Each structure stands twice: as structure tokens, then as C-alpha cells.
């Protein structure tokens, strides 16, 4: 099919191929448009929408696929359904850290859990096909916006005040009056209601809120920026998510900063609410079995390393700032943020023991073994010394040659072999938490556990996300477009006062009730009858019929 430009037989304006309503006078010039594809001619002001006109080449077909609202809605629906499926079982990042996923899902949820895992639904939101769906959505947004936005823009930009009689009848709000004496005054009344007036002889066009028509295109642009921004995370260096583990008093280098920044944990605080503070909360606090936490806080000191760029030099730390990191109050530096994530008191700091003789008398002072860097010997009295012969921070077993094997280097389950040296005698014993075993026979002395002290460590989350400003900008643009499109109404009123009669027609992209109210108020001030609402009549006829 050859696509030809269409010359209007009424006003002579030459329209692009596929135009339905003459872009100049609004007369129907293309009777054989596909009525199935275009339900409301006024939606794009009867202009030629590419996807509704061309369908020959492969490009046309692809273009038509992505511009189709059916396809767009289909993609949105599939994304929504997929998102719902992802909430049936917890995603993998919610299961206990270190657990084997397949085993976890099978144990917890049986065959369904296994299947759910094998289908990849446990990492649904980062799966290739979910990302692909988002990509298709972006394509659909771009294609549909260009396809309809451009002709709509041209059509609204070039519109004239003078419209063909058939255009008037086409509008939902329409009325003919026998006299045209009030036309001028009526137009001015509307002008006072912030309508922009355009005249062409006896023809008037009153328009306001055209911005509303760009709302959808603005919000789609925002979404495209947002989707593009979220893809940026795939580039290295854009997104950093690290855990910082720092014991109280410890200074650690901040990862990914190449040794430029250091922080010291000056102390972790965990506060709880007082049940008897005499406030309105006492009752609920007392009903609650556990303590209600009021604050998690890590006080930190930030340092910058002045010699970070000199290879092999020892760090020369300069204090920058003190800050108290709390939940909802992260610490910001450079492009990074530091968040209070959790705390850890499972690591032991030291263990204290005492020495007893066979009758149970305590000898000398208690001795404390630091678990991070234990001393080799402890003097108890003038003649008794305890020597540490072996130490394992996380005891697993004793190997063949008698050394202690450690499962991890973290002091969570320490074990020691102590030698009690008194004069010439030497006794050996193995000490573990809750247990002590003599190695040499008939020991006279025994070592007893007194107490242990834990390390308090803060777990902080280090974040850097350079894609965030782009995503936020995209969403703000989206919101602006959405509010413009939703809260502003585009209203147009045409008045034709040619000859002795007056025709009034009006169009809006939404809220015909409001437009009708506004028009009828103006008409009533000239004692003119109300406009006629085609659709309202149809609805009510349908009910009667």
C-alpha cells in the first residue's frame, strides 16, 4: 500500500499519511482508518500515529510490537506476577548466612522448596529473565512515547481556531444555539477563567492546561532514566556494599578506599527502654517478655591516611571527625555512607582462671589469658609458674603429635594446654570451656575457670552507590510527570459563531464533569441552555435499554 499525504477537501491543508482528522480544520479525511485499533480519535487529536499507519517492513513490525499498549500492559502484568511469585518463599538473601541454599529450601519447604530453588525463584529479582523483562519494558516505554508523543505535539502546536462542523459534532460536549450574539462575551468569560484565546474571524479556540498532555511523556522519560540508572550497577566501582567489622578500640582500614580512610570503633552502645520510667509506655514494655531496644550506636573516629599514595609506607593517620552512627543516622563521607548494621559479642576477649591445690585451696592470684595474643607464662606465686604449652582459639581436636587443631582462627571455643611448674615438678592439663582433663597422671594442682570476657564488636555496612542520584532523578521526573498528567486537565472549547447561529463544543483529556460545570456556569450567566453530554446520555440509555 502506497502511503500518500492527504489533502483536506474542505480547507486544502495537506496532512501526513494516516491522519484521520484534518490537522487544520478537524474534518474527517480518512474514513477507512482501522476502527479496532483507534477507539478514540481525539486521543491524539486524529493525528497520524506511526504504528497505526505502517506495518510493512520488519522494522515496522518490531516498532508496532513495542508501541502496542497490549504488549506494554502484558509486560507490566508479567513483571507484577513474577514479582508476586518471588514472595511465596523468602529470597536467598533472607536465609541464614552460610546455609547451603538447596539444602535449606528442601529442609524447610520440602519438595516445593526444592522445585522453587531449582526454578531459580530464590534469586528471582536478579535473574536474567527478570532483568530482561525490565529491559523490554524500557523499550516499550521509549517506542510508545515517541510513536504517540511526537504527532500529538505537532498536532497541538499547529492547531487552528477554525474547525469543521463535523468536528464539533464529534465532541462529547456539544450544543448549537440559534443566536450568536453572546459569542464574543462568552469567549471573554472563559478567558477570565484562565483560558488562552485564539480567534480566527468568527471562530474561537479557548485552551488551558495543555501541559497536562505532556505528563505521560514526562513520566515515561523519568522511568527510562530510572531503568537506565539501575543498569549502571553492573559497571565496576559504581556500587559498593561491604561489611566492616570493628571491635571496640580497634582501628580498621575502610575497604575499597585503597587505604585512604581508617576508622576507629570508640565504643558500641545498646540501650533499652526502662520499664518503670513512669511513661505511657510502661504497660506495653512490661507486657513484652524481652527488653525493647531504644538505641544501637557506634561511636567512631574517622581518619585520613596522609601517606596513602606512597607505596609501602606505614599509615600516617590524621583525625577528621568524630561521629555517633545510629540506626537512621548513617555517617556520610566522600561518596560513602556507613550504617549501623548489627553487633557481635560472640568472640571471646579473655579467660580468667585460678589455681587450686589438691585440697581446694586457691593459690596466689587469678590469672587472665588474653585470647588474641596470649602470653606464654603466668607467675602465680614465688615458686609456681604456669606456662602455656599450646593454644587453639577454636578447638577442634588433638592431632597425633599432641598439638591442638583449631577450626578457625577466631576465639570462640578456646582450648589450652597448661603446664604447672612448681620447683622440679611439672604437670600438664588440657583446659576447654566447661571441661578440664589431666594429661599427666596424679596431678596435685588443678586449674579452674573463673570468668570470660567477650569482645564487643560493631558490624557496620559500608555503602557507595553512584547510580542512586540518577535513579532518584528519574523517579522525581516520573513523579512530576505523573502529577502533571493527573492533576492538571487539558480543556479546549471551540466556538463557531459563523452566520447567525453559534456552535459550542469542548474536549478534555479527563474530568468532563468539571468542564461541564465550568461551561454551564458561564452559559447560565447569558441565560443559555446547558451543553449536551453525549456519553452521559449513552450510559443512561444503555441502562434503560
Amino acid at each position, binding site marked *: 500500500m502506497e502511503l500518500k499525504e492527504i489533502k483536506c477537501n474542505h480547507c486544502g491543508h495537506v496532512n501526513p499519511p494516516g491522519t484521520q482528522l484534518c490537522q487544520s480544520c478537524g474534518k474527517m479525511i480518512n474514513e477507512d482508518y482501522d476502527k479496532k485499533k483507534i477507539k478514540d480519535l481525539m486521543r491524539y487529536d486524529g493525528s497520524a500515529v506511526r504504528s497505526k499507519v505502517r506495518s510493512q517492513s520488519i522494522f515496522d513490525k518490531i516498532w508496532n510490537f513495542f508501541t502496542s499498549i497490549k504488549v506494554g500492559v502484558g509486560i507490566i502484568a508479567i513483571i507484577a506476577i513474577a514479582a508476586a511469585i*518471588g514472595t511465596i518463599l523468602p529470597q536467598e538473601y533472607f536465609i541464614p548466612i552460610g546455609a547451603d541454599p538447596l539444602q535449606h529450601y528442601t529442609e524447610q519447604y520440602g519438595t516445593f522448596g526444592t522445585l522453587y530453588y531449582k526454578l531459580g525463584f530464590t534469586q528471582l529479582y536478579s535473574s536474567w529473565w527478570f532483568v530482561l523483562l525490565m529491559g523490554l519494558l524500557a523499550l516499550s516505554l521509549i517506542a510508545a512515547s515517541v510513536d504517540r508523543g511526537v504527532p500529538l505535539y505537532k498536532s497541538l502546536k499547529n492547531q487552528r481556531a477554525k474547525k469543521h462542523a463535523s468536528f464539533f459534532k464529534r465532541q462529547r460536549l456539544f450544543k448549537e444555539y440559534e443566536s450568536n450574539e453572546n459569542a464574543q462575551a462568552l469567549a471573554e468569560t472563559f478567558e477570565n477563567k484562565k483560558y488562552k484565546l485564539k480567534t480566527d474571524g468568527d471562530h474561537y479556540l479557548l485552551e488551558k492546561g495543555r501541559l497536562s498532555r505532556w505528563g505521560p511523556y514526562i513520566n515515561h522519560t523519568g522511568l527510562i532514566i530510572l531503568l537506565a540508572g539501575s543498569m549502571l550497577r553492573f559497571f565496576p566501582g559504581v556500587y559498593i556494599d561491604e561489611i566492616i567489622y570493628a571491635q571496640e578500640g580497634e582501628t580498621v582500614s575502610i575497604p575499597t578506599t585503597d587505604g585512604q580512610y581508617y576508622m576507629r570503633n570508640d565504643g558500641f552502645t545498646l540501650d533499652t527502654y526502662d520499664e518503670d520510667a513512669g511513661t505511657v509506655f510502661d504497660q506495653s514494655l512490661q507486657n513484652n517478655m524481652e527488653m525493647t531496644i531504644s538505641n544501637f550506636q557506634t561511636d567512631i573516629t574517622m581518619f585520613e591516611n596522609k601517606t596513602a599514595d606512597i607505596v609501602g609506607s606505614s599509615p600516617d593517620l590524621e583525625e577528621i571527625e568524630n561521629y555517633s552512627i545510629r540506626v537512621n543516622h548513617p555517617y556520610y563521607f566522600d561518596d560513602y555512607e556507613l550504617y549501623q548494621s548489627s553487633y557481635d559479642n560472640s568472640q571471646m576477649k579473655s579467660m580468667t582462671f585460678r589455681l587450686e591445690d589438691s585440697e581446694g585451696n586457691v593459690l596466689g592470684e587469678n590469672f587472665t589469658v588474653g585470647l588474641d595474643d596470649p602470653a606464654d607464662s603466668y607467675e602465680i606465686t614465688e615458686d609456681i609458674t604456669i606456662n602455656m604449652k599450646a593454644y587453639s582459639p577454636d578447638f577442634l581436636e588433638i592431632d597425633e603429635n599432641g598439638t591442638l587443631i583449631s577450626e578457625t582462627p577466631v576465639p570462640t571455643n578456646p582450648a589450652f594446654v597448661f603446664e604447672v611448674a612448681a620447683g622440679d615438678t611439672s604437670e600438664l592439663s588440657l583446659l576447654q570451656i566447661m571441661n578440664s582433663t589431666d594429661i599427666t597422671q596424679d596431678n596435685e594442682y588443678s586449674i579452674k575457670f573463673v570468668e570470660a570476657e567477650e569482645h564487643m564488636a560493631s558490624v557496620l555496612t559500608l555503602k557507595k552507590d553512584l547510580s542512586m542520584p540518577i535513579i532518584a532523578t528519574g523517579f522525581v521526573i516520573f513523579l512530576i510527570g*505523573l502529577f502533571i498528567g*493527573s492533576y492538571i486537565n487539558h480543556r479546549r472549547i471551540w466556538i463557531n459563531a459563523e452566520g447567525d447561529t453559534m456552535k459550542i463544543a469542548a474536549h478534555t483529556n479527563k474530568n468532563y464533569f468539571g468542564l461541564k460545570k465550568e461551561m454551564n456556569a458561564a452559559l447560565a450567566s447569558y441565560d443559555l441552555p446547558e451543553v449536551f453530554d453525549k456519553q452521559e446520555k449513552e450510559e443512561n440509555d444503555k441502562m434503560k435499554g
Partner: protein
Amino acid sequence: MESTFLSLSNTFIFIAFLILLIALLPLGISIKSKSESKKYEKLAIWMIVIAFILELAYFIMRWLATGHAPVSNMYEFIAMFSIMLIGGFLITYHYFKTKVFGLFAIPVSLLLLGYGSLFSTDVQPLIPALQSNWLAIHVITVTLSYGILSMSAVAGLIYLIKAIPADENSWRARWLEAVMIAILTVVMYMVTTVFMQNIIGYNDEFYYTDQQGQQVIAEYHLPSLINYNDAIPVEHVGNNEYEPVDHFHLGIDLPPVIKAHTLNTVVWSIIIGLITYGIVRLIIRKRLFSLVKPLTKKADLALMDEIGYRSVIIGFPLFALGGIFFAAIWAQIAWSRFWGWDPKETWAFITFMFYTIFLHLRLNRGYEGEKSAWLAVGGFILILFNLIAINLIVAGLHSYA
């Protein structure tokens, strides 16, 4: 001082509840009556306005008492939603004089408030994650948008009840009847729970091992049909001590992955709902929605469609702002990530996508009138699902509300 505010606040919302309940009477009369007099309508609307002001006073007083916006737990959140429904109704009434909306919006609002008070109504201090100004900003915007979006569902429901003949042998009539059965079931669920838990005080305790292997107690406020594997009926003898006793149990046992005591309540609600429905059907010998149909007699279909659409275009941007944007800002500050596909977040996203579909179908594919009404009703079901079911079924970061 604070405790005075608190007791005032509780009194206010209780009085508001009663006034709303009584206001249904003049409202119903004004809709049924054939006279032109607006006496009853005016009376009803004034009562609703006063109740709404009292509800706002509840909100302010509770805020003054606790020092934080009263939207921090399930009760406060549902109460807020229920208040916003009344607000939504008053706004719609102001513009369109649709009194019939009240007959649908007020009962839903009251039921929600009743349901909310099944959770603890005590004021609680804020846990660290909630200590933020974003709590008030985020939740108030979301509940406001929910209130407005709900009006679209009310308009849709009225549209359907009026447009679909009650004796029609069609799927649309069956679907509408199904919606009515669902509403009846929810009503019966709330009535039974309030009755059994608060009036009768039925409470059977069972001792079982949960998913994490912890020994916990399940409280059954309805006789146990479904229970946990190896659950032992026990009784609290004080001081956190329990002794084995005999409780009724039908004998269906499920693994702890499924929250058996929630499922038990759901099964009971369906049974009671269906029985009530059966009795009503036997008495009236017509479809249930034919009972409410006369109320919609004066409703203007074109106006219902317009309200249904406009509520969505006003409520949806607010939802996007409060439920997605403000939520993301706060999530970044509190949880270090603005979006994390937590179940509650995901369902907010699904709600967002649903209304997107609604708007595209309406604007581009001519889904007006009945089709649009169906979608509006569907949207409300989604909102309720995200509000209630997600919190009961899955545990995420939004464990408090």
C-alpha cells in the same frame, strides 16, 4: 499529662466509632426515602463530619501522648487507614454529593477499626529503625492514598451492583456474587474473632516447635481444626509455666512452615461465611447482591465511572510518592538500601503496577464503565492483601506493620 492525652484519645476514637455506627441509620433513611427533604442526609453528614473530627483528635492526642506519629504498629496503621476512608468519603461527598458512598465506606471503615483493635492497642515506644521523621511522612501519605484509592473501589462496586441484573445467568453476575461472599466472609471473620476473643475470651493454648526449632505457644481463639505437627495442648499456670491439659482438636496436623493457627482462623471464617451465606440465600431466595441493589437505585452510572477513574488518578500519584518514593528514601537511610524486594516492598510494587495497568487499559483500550469498575474493585483487594495478609503470612522487615 501524657496519660490524660492517651485516655482522651482512646475515648475520642470510641465515641467516633459509635457516632459512625449510628449515622448509618439516618443515611440509610435518606437514601431509601422518596421525599425531597434533605433533613436526614444533612443529619447523617454532620454526624460523619463530627466523627471524623473526633478521629483526627484521637490522632493528635495520641501523638501528643507518645511523642511520635501514631502510625507505628498494626493497630495504629489500620486505624489510620480506617480514618482516611472516612476522609475519602467526605472529600468525594463534597464534590459529587454521593451519599450512597457512605453506606459502603462507613461499614468498611468500622470493620477495619474493629479488626485493628484485635492487635495490641497499647502505645509502644519506637524501636531504633522507626525513630525517624519519615515514619509520619511515609505512612500518612500512603494511608491517604489508600483512602482515596478505596473510593474508586466503592464507586466500582456501586456501579457493578447497579449495572448487573441480580437474576442474570452470567459470569459477571456470579463474580459479583463471589465478591459479595468474600465481603460477607471477611465480615463474619471479624465478627467471630471479636466475639470469641474479646467477649467469650476463648483461648486454647498449644505448645509446638516452630520452623526455627524454637518451642513456642500458639493461641487459638477458635476451636482447633488445624494444628501444628506434635502440638501439645497446654494451659498457662502463671509465671511462664505451662501444664498439659485437654483441648478440642479435630486432628489435622501440618508442618510448622504453614502458620496453622492463622490457617485455622481462615478456615473457620470460610465455614462461617459460607454457612451465613447459605442461610441468607435460603431466606431471600435471590442473589445476595440483590439485597443491596435497591440502595444503588439513584446512583448515576456515568458519575460512578467518573469518580472511579478520578479517585485513581488522584490517589495513584500520591501512592507513588508515599508508598514508593518516600519509602525508598527512608529505606536508604534506615536499612542502607532504597529498594530490597522485601515482601512488603514487592507488594507495594505490585499494587503500583496494577494501577499502571488500570490507567493504560482505561486510557488506551477503552476500559471504561464495567471493566474499569472490576479493576477498581481488584485494586482494593490488592491493598487489603498488602495491608493485612502479607503481615500475617510472611515475615519481612516490615514486621511491625
